[in-house]
């Protein structure tokens, strides 16, 4: 067995521990989708530009395609699947739904994960700041207007401490 062969990994994903084997070169995005069945994150560009594979690593957004699964050991991984736990949509998900902030939905998981984390750090953003934050997530359907409106609404609801 060489150092290039699959190695045993222990990953903490959405609060549960997973054991699996993966080669060091395997992208975290691929391991989450293919080995863990967490297909909510989407793989678009695989070089960090499109944002569709964004997850949280210890609470901070990270491109799952720019990490190797072996690097994620010892960290808390949160995927889009954690955001509607219990069947309740998250604040950002609910606002995107109401504002028609998605069409095909390919970019949506990355937008939800990124903006939930961003709003926690930026509770009272301007629309310009929202557009800047959204620039890291490519959407080719909506033209962004409805996504921006949804994030404005989600920010207001978060400040008021309510989900809808």
């Amino acid at each position, binding site marked *: 067995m060489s*150092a290039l062969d699959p190695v045993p990994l222990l990953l903490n994903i959405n609060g549960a521990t997973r054991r699996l084997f993966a080669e060091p070169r395997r992208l975290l995005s691929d391991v989450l989708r293919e080995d863990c069945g967490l297909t909510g994150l989407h793989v678009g560009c695989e070089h960090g530009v499109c944002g569709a594979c964004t997850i949280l690593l210890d609470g901070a957004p990270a491109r799952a395609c720019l990490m190797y699964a072996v690097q994620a050991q010892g960290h808390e991984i949160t995927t889009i699947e954690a955001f509607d736990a219990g069947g309740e949509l998250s604040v950002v998900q609910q606002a995107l739904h109401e504002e028609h902030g998605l069409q095909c939905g390919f970019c949506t998981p990355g937008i939800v994960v990124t903006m939930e984390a961003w709003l926690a750090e930026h509770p009272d953003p301007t629309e310009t700041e929202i557009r800047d934050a959204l620039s890291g997530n490519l959407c080719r359907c909506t033209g962004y207007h409805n996504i921006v409106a949804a994030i404005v609404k989600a920010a207001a609801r978060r400040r008021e401490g309510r989900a809808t």
Partner: protein
Amino acid sequence: MKPARFAYDAPATLEGVLRSLAAAGDGAKVIAGGQSLAPMLNMRLARPDRLIDINAVGELGEIALDGNWLSIGALVRHDALARTALVQQHCPLLAHAAATIGHYAIRKRGTIGGSLAHADPAAQLPLVALALDAEMDLRSTRGSRIVAARDFFLSVFSTVLDSDELLVRVRIPRSSAGEGFGFRLFNQRAGDFALVAVAATLARGPDNRVARLRLAIGGIGPVPARVEHLAASETGEPFSEQWSARVAAAIADAVKIEENERAPVAFRKELVVALMREALDEALDRAGRGS
């Protein structure tokens, strides 16, 4: 879009990283935030035999004041540079420039050491390191050395780092009293690398003349360039309405702008004029009134 096979080490200590680097030879790459290296691996533009992950080395993530210097560990993320009070207070140009890198998720992972060691000629942090006279602290099992930013960058994606060396921290002189900074970049999409970027620091001296002017430009050659000497005849003049425009024009005329595949030389020369003038005006606004 999948990387070639590699072996993986994640030493928990700096000594462990340096031993791994010394043992691995030329075929290893250090990975920190991975925001530049992972795309190159995924596209197989780089094919190292081994990745040495430094993320577990906690001491590389520290920011501290050390006399007149701000000491910044190689693992400090761009987002932390932008949002940490010590950086905002003592190296405001660095904090400001770091906030313009890539996107939010990229800034949460990407590191100062990674950006400097990667040495993209259009990146913000090499430009700012040069403008602020930063020093790089390089370590290996053979010892340590300090290299000034002006000597650190050799060419596109190329630095003086030997294959067994690690950039462990960056030391930057604290901003002096009354010093103002300006920073401007132009890119075609938010988060892209700049076509041209400009950094300036200055202070107002006696008789309303410029003092301590530092100017640097990225995106015009294989490494960022310090350029204030190109406008020496202008910088002795008292400030006036046209001062920043004259300095910007003099520098754009004198500076060498190399061909690249990203934008024509003539366009980037116009960018130098416009961005330099704006950066100088911004620095003047921020500078104290002088004595």
